[in-house]
């Protein structure tokens, strides 16, 4: 599996000279395995993904963690949607009442966006997910609801022996009875356990988190504690705060990891980064 980061910023795109290392585009990850093309989230990073997509790709699977704007805002500018020879699938969290297609239509409608979903040359195929398991090509996908306002999914992608886990927006302390001590009672554990690579929400410093409890995001310290509990091999901190510069992000990581003895790699997710899992 090849994993490429097209956007890892949280909440709002933040272009600017102070964000050249970690990037300013919001959530968008491309996962390629053989012929299979999977995209996690349609944040502003999906524009460049579409622009540089291999022209031989004829089928694309877009998995939304949830429909907050930072995870959907790039969709209207994703050129494969306007190419009738490309089949696009949309997967997203099921809620109890409103179908996923209706929730997606809110974005694809004036005044938010001029083009309606029904006006695309080829209507995307919609798949509603809850806690489930299915396959896309050779990739096995497991989805599970995670703790974040509104229906939100974490994804576990398995190809051969390699596992990539993606939990972009997740409040660990809220979704756990005794964090970080009981895997059975920690939301997201099944998605992340023993993953070769985990992308996890790490929006806040521990101090910031104390004033943002219930907002649906985690601190860097909690993300690291979760990575440790799940025995992941590598953790990339995700959903960087839009107000944070490259320098501040690096300071935050340094401060959060000092005095910690870790037996796995922890790093800041950066736009443009590519991971190869064998």
């Amino acid at each position, binding site marked *: 599996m090849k994993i490429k980061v097209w956007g890892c910023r949280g909440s709002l795109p933040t272009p600017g000279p102070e964000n050249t290392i970690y990037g300013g585009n919001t959530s968008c990850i491309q996962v390629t395995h053989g012929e299979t093309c999977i995209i996690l989230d349609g944040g502003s990073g999906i524009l460049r993904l579409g622009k540089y997509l291999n022209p031989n790709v004829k089928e694309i699977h877009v998995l939304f963690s949830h429909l907050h704007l930072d995870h959907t805002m790039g969709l209207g500018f994703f050129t494969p949607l306007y190419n009738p020879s490309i089949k696009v699938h949309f997967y997203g969290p099921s809620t*109890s009442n409103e179908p996923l297609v209706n929730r997606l239509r809110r974005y694809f409608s004036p005044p938010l966006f001029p083009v309606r979903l029904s006006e695309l040359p080829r209507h995307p195929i919609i798949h509603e997910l809850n806690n489930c398991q299915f396959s896309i090509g050779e990739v096995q996908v497991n989805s599970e609801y995670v703790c974040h306002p509104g229906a939100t999914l974490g994804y576990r992608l398995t190809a051969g022996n390699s596992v990539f886990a993606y939990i972009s927006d997740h409040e660990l302390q809220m979704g756990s*009875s005794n964090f970080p001590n009981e895997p059975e009672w920690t939301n997201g554990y099944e998605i992340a356990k023993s993953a070769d690579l985990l992308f996890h929400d790490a929006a806040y410093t521990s101090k910031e988190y104390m004033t943002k409890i219930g907002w649906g995001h985690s601190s860097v310290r909690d993300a690291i504690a979760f990575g440790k509990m799940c025995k992941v091999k590598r953790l990339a901190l995700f959903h960087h705060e839009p107000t944070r510069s490259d320098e501040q992000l690096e300071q935050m990581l340094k401060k959060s990891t000092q005095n910690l003895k870790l037996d796995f790699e922890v790093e800041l997710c950066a736009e443009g980064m590519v991971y190869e899992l064998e």
Partner: protein
Amino acid sequence: MPSQPLELILARQFGDSLSMPCFLVDPDGNLLFYNEAAESIFGLRFGETGGMRVEEWATVFTPSDANGNALVPEDLPLVKTISTGNPAFGTFFINSLTGERIQITVSSFPIMGRSNRLLGSMAMFWKTKEI
């Protein structure tokens, strides 16, 4: 042991933060959690007993009616909720593990999670009178 679905974790968090006694069971009726307020009625600590199967918890407190006749598990509100998926309500007597006979009133309801999945049931109860 696979981890619990988000809705049950949140239900446990909710129960844990209440001063009203509460019970949380999975769809098969296995007791997953009871809170501190429930511990004080039963005289049992969750940390010591851990989870229990429905046959255990439905009989360990020797539930009985006002005349002292033993109730079968199927008469208990939470057991009704587990088997029918509907809310239930009832008043009966139990023996706490300290030997005290107490009257409790129970309201139980199913936990239907996102996407209409039945994930378990929860019961809240109140100590109505001591004999």
